[in-house]
């Protein structure tokens, strides 16, 4: 399902253009132009606009947008949410990937479908699920009210909704990676007397390191940027339950466009950083693949 966001372990196809299977220069130029124009119009131009609008009123105004009490509170809440959601979802992702990629069991495809669920469920419905569970008129609402515990329209609700929308990412990065690597090295370590924990720490972890790093960075970007689900459970209380994306919305609707784009530029920067990390990780993977292939070839010659 969500294989589309997984890292690609293979790079560069073996395609070699020859006259009978290539296109004319004109066709090539037209297709490249369409592709580049689409990406420029939909991706590059919005990105350029975010930073242009953010800096429109000068650097002073740009930095002032981060120092208002509401902005500080939003940044703090976003950091707290990510600080809780990312480690929990990382542990989940590693555990789920270990169970799914290393063992055969009945109902595996059902388990994978469950993990993919947040990709197909609307973020607003994700929020709705927790309102029905914890909201004042929901299942646990009366009990929570009696004990003076607030989840909806409070920080715990924001964290739970964020957990829900971002839990698949680490698992989704690691499962294909670990399946491709196989378990020979781990079995060898166990045979040589390593404990299960030592095997994981010394053999598995170094092998999945780069995929794990990308999974964590992507989870973090999505946790900090989630809008729909958080919007439903937050209640938009300024200075209390507004995260950075919700603060962007408040500023934008208040016609404080520059300030809104200033906060947006932080998240846009985080997104670009995520793509840079992804490129580095794919490059590292391609290099280690090439090295492994070279070593195998040398082994054949000896």
């Amino acid at each position, binding site marked *: *399902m969500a*294989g*589309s*966001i997984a890292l*690609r372990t*293979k790079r560069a*196809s*073996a395609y*070699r253009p020859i006259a*009978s*299977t290539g*296109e004319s220069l004109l066709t090539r130029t037209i297709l490249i132009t*369409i*592709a580049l124009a*689409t*990406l420029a119009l*939909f*991706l590059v*131009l*919005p990105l350029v*606009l975010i930073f242009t609008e953010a800096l429109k009123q000068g650097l002073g105004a740009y930095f002032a947008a981060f120092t208002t009490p509401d902005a500080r509170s939003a940044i703090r809440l976003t950091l707290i949410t990510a600080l809780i959601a990312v480690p929990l979802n990382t542990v*989940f992702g590693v*555990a789920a990937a*270990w169970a799914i990629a*290393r*063992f055969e069991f009945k109902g595996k495809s059902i*388990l994978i479908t*469950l993990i993919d*669920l947040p990709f*197909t*469920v*609307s973020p*607003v*419905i994700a*929020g*709705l699920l*927790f*309102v*029905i*569970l914890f909201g*004042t*008129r929901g*299942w646990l609402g009366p009990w929570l009210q009696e004990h003076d515990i607030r989840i909806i329209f409070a920080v715990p609700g924001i964290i739970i909704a964020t957990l829900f929308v971002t839990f698949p990412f680490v698992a989704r990065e690691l499962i294909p990676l670990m399946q491709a690597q196989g*378990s020979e090295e781990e079995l060898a370590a*166990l045979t040589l007397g390593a404990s*299960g924990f030592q095997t994981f720490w010394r053999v598995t972890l170094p092998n999945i390191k780069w995929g794990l790093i990308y999974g964590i960075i992507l989870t973090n*970007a*999505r946790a900090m*940027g989630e*809008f729909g689900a958080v919007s*439903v459970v937050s209640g938009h209380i300024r200075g209390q339950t507004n995260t950075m994306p919700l603060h*962007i*919305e408040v500023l*934008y609707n208040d016609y404080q*466009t520059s300030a*809104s*784009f200033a906060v*947006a530029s932080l998240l846009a920067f985080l*997104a670009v950083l*995520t793509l840079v990390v992804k490129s580095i990780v794919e490059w590292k993977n391609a290099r280690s693949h090439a090295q492994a292939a070279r070593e195998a070839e040398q082994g054949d010659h000896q």
Partner: protein
Amino acid sequence: MLPGFGLSMGFTLLYLAFLVLIPLGGLVLYTSTRITWGEFWSRAVTDPRVVAAYKLSFGASLIAAVLNGVLGLIIAWVLVRYEFWGKRLVDAIVDLPFALPTAVSGIALTTLYARTGWIGRLFDPLGIQIAYAYPGIVLALVLIGLPFVVRTVQPALEDLEQDMEEAASALGATRWQTFYRVILPNIMPSLLTGFSLAFARAWGEFGSIYFIAGNMPFKTEITPLLILIRLEQFDYVGATAIGVVMLVAAFFLLLLINLLQWWSRRHQAS
């Protein structure tokens, strides 16, 4: 035998139980015990404002997914088959919608395509309104769905055997015939997967549309927004009824696409 199956599996199931199964169970139980058929019918099936939202969400998602299919195929094709300056950068930037928060792309697109925006002002003299109208919604959905098609079609194109194309050309097929008769049927399952992922994502999308849609009831109000509006009025019944319709529709769409994929794989094999 590797250790840790019980531990990792137990933790995974416990985590999923609390985060997914119990909340989903809560929704099902709420729908079946607290909403009567009559209520469900009047709130989520016959209410004209809700029906208008379904039509908008479905139509815009379909148009966007079709556009994504065409544009995504062209981008994947260009990235796999041609060499040009800056290709690696272009390849990296395709993933931007996965990492960019929807609220951020939402306000950026709105500012860009509003009447006074960099692109909107080019269309304004022609009398074409993009932001706060139907085209704006489609635009936002194309943006968020584009990487799904590119990233599913790209590997399929990379794996394509070139011999088939050479054979087709040797047998006298034109390049277009080769594409239409040989290449397209081979990558069809992946293209359908990408299309369905883009469609499913568009059907539930909220953040990026929220800003550009204008949110006028009966005109530019999408279904997820209606759920949010109902919840803001503490109308759990109305929100849940619409939510159930959205979930059931998403489920049937995925089922349909899976059938299509199965059919196209079988078709290809014969």
